[in-house]
């Protein structure tokens, strides 16, 4: 009896349930959820629940995005204020109205320019795509994502590439019926098959925790210059070949390394809430050709050969 009382006492302090049992149950349930989530992969019950949660919470995200939109135009207001500081003292009230109109019109102009850019991109690359709008940024610290206002009901699916007028911004990583989460290029877990436009050297463009993009797998015997444009290579069949990704901002050749350390500045950051294109399918001419694949293979095999050769020479030297 005493033992039972002691056991109860561990759960109750001062006449109030301290939550020990609840804690144990919650921990077990959460571990089950975690295991189920890991085991079921990209589809399953929990991901269905997550999609449902996304649908329910999308309106709130949209409202948040709408709240952000005035801040996007705020830069224009400040620019106007500083540009006409003297005349503002005489024509203050009139100027306020004009500034409001200028802000509104410049927003409309920028929107028109972006849409025009998207159309141009769509036409240039003959993209089969669906237009969408970014409604929210990432709600946590562990991913660099944005939420767009279209989902599986509009024909979107996980894995589809997303671009804006400047080029590729990322790839859909989760898709609900009315919204989708896009993993941006800068995300630490993001990687895209890429190539240097000038030299056609192929590599992988990866995101990192500090937000920079790094182009890996480019051999040090190839020529890479600061300012070179990086485009999608089309290998893997996910991204259309030739879409712009960014520009090389630094090239480092570590002593004895096989690959360069290349940092790439993306053409677009998707920080503001703008329109995007989701590329829904690829035509044959947008996929990597067999020549591209064999070029990538030969690049790999030459790397292996140079590694073997380096290892052999190192062994010979040590002897």
């Amino acid at each position, binding site marked *: 009896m005493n033992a039972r009382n002691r056991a109860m006492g561990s759960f109750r302090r001062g006449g109030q349930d*301290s*939550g020990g049992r609840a804690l144990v149950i919650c921990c077990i349930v*959460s571990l089950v959820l*975690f295991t189920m989530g890991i085991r079921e992969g990209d589809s399953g019950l929990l991901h269905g629940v997550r999609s449902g949660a996304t649908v329910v919470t999308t309106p709130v995200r949209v409202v948040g995005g709408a709240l952000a939109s005035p801040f996007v135009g705020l830069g224009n207001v400040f620019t106007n204020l500083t540009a006409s500081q003297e005349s503002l003292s005489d024509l203050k009230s009139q100027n306020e109205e004009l500034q409001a109109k200028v802000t509104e019109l410049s927003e409309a102009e920028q929107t028109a320019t972006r849409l025009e850019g998207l159309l141009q991109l769509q036409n240039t690359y003959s993209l089969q795509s669906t237009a969408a709008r970014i409604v*929210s940024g990432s709600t946590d610290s*562990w991913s660099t994502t944005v939420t767009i206002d279209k989902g599986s009901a509009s024909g979107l699916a996980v894995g589809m590439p997303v671009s804006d007028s400047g080029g590729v911004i990322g790839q859909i990583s989760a898709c609900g019926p009315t919204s989708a*989460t896009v993993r941006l290029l800068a995300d630490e877990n993001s990687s895209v098959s890429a190539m240097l436009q000038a030299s056609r050297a192929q590599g992988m463009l990866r995101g990192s925790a500090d937000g920079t993009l790094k182009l890996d797998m480019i051999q040090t015997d190839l020529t890479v210059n600061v300012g070179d444009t990086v485009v999608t290579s089309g290998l893997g069949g996910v991204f259309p070949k030739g879409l712009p990704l960014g520009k090389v901002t630094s090239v480092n050749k570590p002593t004895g390394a096989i690959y360069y350390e290349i940092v790439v500045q993306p053409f677009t950051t998707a920080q503001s809430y703008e329109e995007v294109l989701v590329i829904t399918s690829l035509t044959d001419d947008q996929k990597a050709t067999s020549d591209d694949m064999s070029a990538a293979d030969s690049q790999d095999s030459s790397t292996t050969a140079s590694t073997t050769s380096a290892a052999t020479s190192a062994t010979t030297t040590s002897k």
Partner: protein
Amino acid sequence: MQVSDQNKESRTIGILALVCALLQLGIVPLFGIGDGRANLALVFAGLMAFMFGGRRGVLLAFLAGVFFDLTTTGPIGIMAFELPVMAFLLGSESRNRLIEDRTESLKEFALGSLAVGLVYGIVMLFLGQAGSLVDVVLLRVIPTFALTFVAFAAFAYFLSGGSSGGRARGPRRAGMRSGGRIRTKGL
């Protein structure tokens, strides 16, 4: 003697949950330090632990964790595991600590939220969602902690009536013990 007003408590919990959820989804994405974003599920769990503690605090923290896991892109279940543990540890002493000893509550929440962030980061590292521990700590955990702590301090200040903080003394404390509750006016 503390008089428990179940309806008032439920209303407070509901309103706080709604406010935190709306802020997490609508406003948090707009403000960040680097990649760091405030975690209002953590704030809610902390508030529930200090205000109510016990079984209710643990269960509400668990629900907050599930909400966080479902509305973010990380694995489901990690925050749902961590928040009840934190709520259990923070809320095991007594109720109403947010009013009675706000400074101490802030210190304990700071430690708790930092520990939650670190554990979450380490789990993400093991799951291959993050590259290095240094990046995890410098670029994710510390900015998240800073923003989350500021958010918690703001909530604590508001809920405790905007007083200067510290351990309540004299008539004010006596008032709390004779039925004074968390401020809900205006909620």
